[in-house]
C-alpha cells in the first residue's frame, strides 16, 4: 500500500510544500483511521501544497529503519524542515495540528 497520495487540489505556486510520510501496518483499523484523518486535515489546512507518502511496513519492514519507526501509525513531516514526528491514528485533531506546528502549541 506504499503510495503517494496526491492532493485533490493542484499544488499552488508560492505556498510552502508540505511533504508528509505516513507509516502504517497493512489495513489495520488504526492505519485506515490515520490515513483518513490525515487526508481530511490536509485538505482542510494544506489544500494545494501537500503531498502524502504512505509506507506500509508489513510490505517493507526494512523501511522502518530509515525514519526510526517504532509506533504505528507514525506521521513524519519531511518538509518543511525541521523533521517532526507524531504518532497515533490522528483522531485528536488539535494534537495533530500542534504536532505538525499548524497551530501553536500550548508551550509556544
Amino acid at each position, binding site marked *: 500500500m506504499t503510495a503517494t497520495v496526491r492532493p485533490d487540489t493542484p499544488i499552488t505556486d508560492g505556498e510552502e510544500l508540505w511533504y508528509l510520510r505516513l507509516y502504517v501496518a497493512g489495513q489495520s483499523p488504526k492505519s485506515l483511521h*490515520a490515513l483518513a484523518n490525515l487526508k481530511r486535515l490536509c485538505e482542510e489546512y494544506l489544500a494545494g501544497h501537500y503531498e502524502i507518502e504512505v509506507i506500509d511496513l508489513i510490505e517493507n519492514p526494512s523501511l*522502518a529503519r530509515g525514519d526510526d519507526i*517504532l509506533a504505528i501509525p507514525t506521521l513524519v513531516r519531511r518538509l518543511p524542515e525541521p523533521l517532526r*514526528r*507524531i504518532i497515533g491514528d490522528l483522531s485528536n485533531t488539535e494534537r495533530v495540528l500542534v504536532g505538525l506546528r499548524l497551530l501553536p502549541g500550548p508551550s509556544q
Partner: protein
Amino acid sequence: MTVTPGIATDRQRGATEPPVGRLAHLPKTPTGIHGLDEVTGGGLPRGRPTLVCGPAGCGKTLLAMEFLVRGIVEFDEPGVFVTFEESADDLVANVASLGFDLLRYEADGQLVIDHVGMVGGEMDDTGDWDLDGLFLRLGAAIDAVGAKRVVLDTIETLFGAFSNTATLRSELRRLFGWLKDRGVTAVITGERGDGTLTRHGIEEYVSDCVIVLDHRVTEQTSTRRLRILKYRGSLHGTNEYPFLIGESGISVLPVTSPGLRNAVSTQRVSTGVARLDAMLGGGGFYRGSTVLVSGTAGTGKSTLAAQFCNAACTRGERAMYFAFEESEAEILRNMASVGIDLRRWVDAGLLQFRCFRPSLLGLEAHLFAVQKFVSEFDPSVVVKDPVSDLLRVGTVADVSAMLARQVDFLKAKGVTSLFTSLSSFDDPAHAGEQIASLVDTWLVVKTMEGNGEHNRILSVLKSRGMAHSNQIREFLLTGQGIELADVYVGPQGVLTGSARQAQEAKERSDGAAWQEDLEQRRVNLERRRESVEAQVTDLWREFENEADIVGRLLSHGSTGVEDRAGQRAEQGRLRRADPDESALKVRPSDVEIGGK
C-alpha cells in the same frame, strides 16, 4: 541460602555450589560466557526473555553482546541486537577490543544490529497507536538472519519517547509475549531504578529469569558482581559472583567450582631442601597440594620458594613464579647470591615470572589474571610471593575468599602451589591464620634473637596427610641454597647461630676430653694389670720357696721329738757357755752396720 558476598568460607562454598544440570527438562540456551553457564546451570531459558539489570556502567550491554557473539561463534545461533542507546558504530567500536568483529558477523549474515534512535524527544500521540513498527522491524531482522537470540538494549529508553506510558506498558507486555512466540532467547537490559530493579518496572513483564549486575567500590577497588535473582523453573546459584571484563569478554567467577571433588595424588614433589623433605615424612609436599610459608621479614620465604621452583625445573617440570614485591631481575640476582641459578630455567623456558603489584588489579582481576597465566603456561608448580600483599587490595575476608577460589582452581589443575605470607614480628602466626585453613601444609619460618644475633628457624606447623616432624630446625642460607641444621635445646631454650656453633664446639671438645680420659683409664688399667701380674708372680715364687723348704724338711726324715731334744741340749750348752762373739759377728746385718 544467600551468602553475603566475599565472606564465603570453604565450607559455605561447598554447600552453595551452583547446581548443574539437575533439572534437565527446562531447555536452556548456553550463553558461552565464561562461568555464567555454570552459575545458571546451563544457560538462559531457551525461547524466553531474560532481564539483565543493574546500574550504569555495570556491563549489561557487554554481557548482552557477548551472549549474541558467543551464540554466533560457538553455537551457530545468529542474533539480532536492537540498541536504543548507543549507535551501531559505537557498539562495533566498543566491543572490537574484545575481539568481537561485529561487522564481519553482519557481513556473514549472522548478526543484525538495529539502532533505534530516539531523535526528536517525546512524540505527541494523537490517538491510538501500537508498537507494530518495532515488531515489524524486529521480525524482519530475525527473519533476515534466522536469529535464535535477540537483545533489546535498553528498551526502557522508550519511556522517554512516548508520553502515553499506559499504552507503552501494554505494548511491552505484548512484545515480550511475541518474542516468546517467536521462540527466540532474548536478553533485555534495564537500568536500575530507585528501589526497583529497573526504572520503569519492566521486571514485571520479564519474569522467567532475572540477572542483576552490580558494580561496587570497596576500599578503592571496584568489583563487578553478578547474581541470579530469579530463574523460574530452574535451580541456580544464589550467591553474588564476582565477574570481570577481561581481554576476551566477561568471566564470571568462580569459573571452577568442583565442590571439593578434586582428584588427589599421593605422589610427592620435593621441596628442594632434602632435610625439609625428610621433615615432611620423606619426599616433600603432595603433588597438587597447597603450601603456605609464613614468616617475618627476611626469613628466607622467597628463597624457599625459589628453591622449590628450582627443584621442579630440575625435574623438568614447569614452574610459574608470581612476585608482588620484586622484579624478575631482582629475584634472579638475589637467588644467584645463595647459589640458586634460576636464570637457566628461564632461558630453558621452564620457569616464568609474573611480577606485578597487586594494587594494579582488583582482587577479581588478580584472580582472573593468575588463572589466565596458569592456563596458558600449564605449570606443575606455582609460587605466589607474597599473598599477604593482596591484603592491601582487599579485606581479609575478600582475600581469603579469593584465595579459596584460587586454591580450588589450582587443585583442579593438579598444580602444587606455594604461597608465602609476611607476618608481623609480634605475632608470626597471625597473618597466615586467615588462609591457613585453605592450605595443606603450613611452614613457619621466623627469626630468633639471642647472643646478639638473629637466626632463622623453620618448623612444620601442619601438613595434612603425612607424618611430619615436630622439630624445629635452624634454617641456613648458604652459598648452595637452603640448608637445615639441628637446633640444640639447652637451659636457655633453643640454641641457634653462634650459640649452636658454640654448643657444637663444646660438645666436640667434651667428646675429646672423654676420649682422653678413657685412654688414660685404659693405660692405668694396663699398668695395674701388669703390677697385679707381677705380684702374683712374686706370691707364686714365695709359695714355691716355702714349698721347697717344706719338701726338703720332709725328705730329711727327722722327727719333731729329736729336734726338740737337740734344741734343749743346745740351749743348755749356750746358757752355760760364754757368748761366742765371733758367731754374732757373722750375721750379715751386723757386718753391714759395722762396715759403716
